[in-house]
């Protein structure tokens, strides 16, 4: 995004941050940039850009996976980043969302996708409240342990419950109803230069079994909605109450913040978004079993949030992309994936302990700290 749009401005005003630079642009230009960016994201799976496109696996499918991670990261960011509640069992909500879709649309009923997904969100949200109501009275590390247990309980329940398909899982989850509006051509780079390929197309919103691009579009739309929701809620009394609770729970309570209520709200919203993501995953996969919801996934979700910068919604999006996309892109090194991942995390912890894109507050505080350090140095020498 920044490669084409940023360079022109960057030469002139290098010292301003990216955000300030963008904010300084005229309104029309800003809107235009957003439109271009949106179209780019929409077209991304069909552009087949060399190097970015994954070779081994279907790029549309990879992008869909990345999108579900982004969604999960946004949900988990509300819990971990805003409210400061370390939730290590987030995969539980993801699984609950996916299984609700599976059970209600394939295993025990044949409800339509349109009906099932809202139910999945509600079920995940309720499970968040059910988990949160007793456990949110404990703090910090204890909460992490309790939630870790929750994630495992969900998985073990799935494995052992015949009603939920036990270890064979649930298959033949129906596709969402589609409308065939128009076809989007792809780009072919095989001749060295981009050529519009009218034979390989994706139909806008036809949810098939071979072409995963429409699922990606669906996820993209959902992300946009969740982002909007996030922005609106964060910049309100609710967001401030979350942050105050994270900073100092007792002080917040004494300043009139009903902290328990707000923690529960964060938990429920996070769970709902996790459930939604799981529902999308089940829809696209068409088949789910307990192995899709291992503990490792919870760790990856947390990693996405922490790598990106907990508390900054754009940061966690970047984190999710890093965590979900790079292992797919570099599948050749599949055997070393975990090794490289661990190494990357260590480097990150050393060089960017606040994440790739730390929240605004950290950046600002650092700047002030640096300013102070310089002044103190000057004073000491004087």
């Amino acid at each position, binding site marked *: 995004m920044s490669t084409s749009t940023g360079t022109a401005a960057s030469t002139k005003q290098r010292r301003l941050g990216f955000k300030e630079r963008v904010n300084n642009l005229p309104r029309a230009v800003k809107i235009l940039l957003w439109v271009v960016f949106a179209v780019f994201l929409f077209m991304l799976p069909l552009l087949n850009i060399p190097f970015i496109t994954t070779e081994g696996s279907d790029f549309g499918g990879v992008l869909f996976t990345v999108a579900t991670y982004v969604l999960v990261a946004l949900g988990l960011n509300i819990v971990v980043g805003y409210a400061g509640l370390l939730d290590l069992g987030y995969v539980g909500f993801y699984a609950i969302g996916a299984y609700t879709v599976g059970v209600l649309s394939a295993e025990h009923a044949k409800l339509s996708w349109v009906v099932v997904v809202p139910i999945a969100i509600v079920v995940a949200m309720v499970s968040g409240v059910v988990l949160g109501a007793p456990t949110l009275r404990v703090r910090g590390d204890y909460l992490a342990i309790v939630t870790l247990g929750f994630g495992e309980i969900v998985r073990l329940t799935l494995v052992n419950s015949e009603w939920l398909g036990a270890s064979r899982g649930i298959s033949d989850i129906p596709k969402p109803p589609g409308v065939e509006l128009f076809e989007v051509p792809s780009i072919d780079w095989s001749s060295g230069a981009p050529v519009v390929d009218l034979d390989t197309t994706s139909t806008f919103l036809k949810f098939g079994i071979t072409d995963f691009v429409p699922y990606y579009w669906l996820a993209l739309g959902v992300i946009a909605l969740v982002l909007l929701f996030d922005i609106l809620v964060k910049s309100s009394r*609710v*967001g401030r109450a979350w942050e105050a609770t994270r900073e100092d729970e007792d002080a917040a309570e004494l300043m009139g913040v009903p902290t328990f209520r707000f923690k529960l709200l964060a938990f429920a919203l996070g769970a709902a978004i996790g459930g939604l993501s799981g529902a999308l995953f089940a829809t696209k996969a068409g088949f789910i079993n307990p192995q899709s919801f291992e503990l490792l996934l919870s760790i990856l979700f947390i990693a996405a949030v922490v790598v990106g910068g907990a508390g900054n919604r754009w940061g966690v999006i970047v984190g999710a992309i890093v965590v979900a996309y790079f292992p797919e892109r570099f599948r050749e090194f599949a055997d070393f994936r975990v090794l490289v991942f661990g190494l990357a995390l260590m480097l990150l912890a050393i060089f960017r302990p606040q994440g790739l894109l730390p929240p605004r507050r950290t950046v600002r505080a650092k700047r*002030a700290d640096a300013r102070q350090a310089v002044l103190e140095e000057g004073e000491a020498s004087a």
Partner: protein
Amino acid sequence: MPESTEPNRPDTSAESTAQTTPEATAEPTAAAAADDATTRPAVTPTTDATAPLADPADEVTEINPDVDITPDDIGVPEVAEGERLLEVDDVTLRFGGVVALNEVSFHINKGEILGLIGPNGAGKTTCFNVMTGVYQPTSGGIRYLGKPLGKRKKFQITKLGIARTFQNIRLFANMTALENVLVGVDAHHSTGIGAAMFRLPKHRREEAQGYARAMELLTFMGLDGKADELARNLPYGDQRRLEIARALATSPQLLCLDEPAAGFNPAEKAKLMELIRTIRDQGYTVLLIEHDMKLVMGVTDRIVVLEFGRKIAEGSPAEIRDNPAVIAAYLGVDEEDAS
């Protein structure tokens, strides 16, 4: 709102220099410790002494006493000036075998400044904690506006109009000064997830009202230029003031200040006295815990003295100064040496 309307932050490089939090806290605790070691009221004015890093006068942020910060109507019954606002009735608090408060009774009248003093460990802060719902008394109770507080939760008590600051500063460190105060104003707001999501009129009204009140309070405290600074980057004195602003934001009937002068130099203490008086004149009732006798004597209308969890004296500053029990508590009695 914070994202879109971020005003240009003034470059505050100059004033945030010398008295940064670490040195400032280190210096005062040492001073307080010295006071305690001699167990002697700090009546000796140290105007000339120990100028630490920079000229202390430079550090004192000027307040703007003319800004109207009168409390908002928070829907609690009005109490006439001089009537009893809060009564502590025979409060006893035990932690296992330790009696932290022993049948303590006193009251606070509307519109006064009441000092709560006593040697270290006398139970002053514990008393605050009982009043603000942090602890439930073992026996006895608190009557506020004529009604018992009962088992109300902390945030509910705040909503009823009792706000406090903390002995150790407990700001929301990674939020801006403005956001800190906004949290306080929010105590009486009810915007929920729905109103925020759809930007209902309620959200807009409350945000506008909250922002206006928060800015008023920051201006009153002389902190309006630092509204967008993170709380943890403010100089020590400003953090103290910001804590008071945050407490005032909840429009309390009763403002409890827990050692607001801790770590202040004499110049800052003088400013603080002026500030406390101004706050009272703007319609607040103040309960003040303080070690510094000069400050307490200078600013309060009445004083309650605690020692070992027991009330040993109550009266006007002049009465307290001459009270033998108080002198004994502070200086210690030496029976052999009766000169």
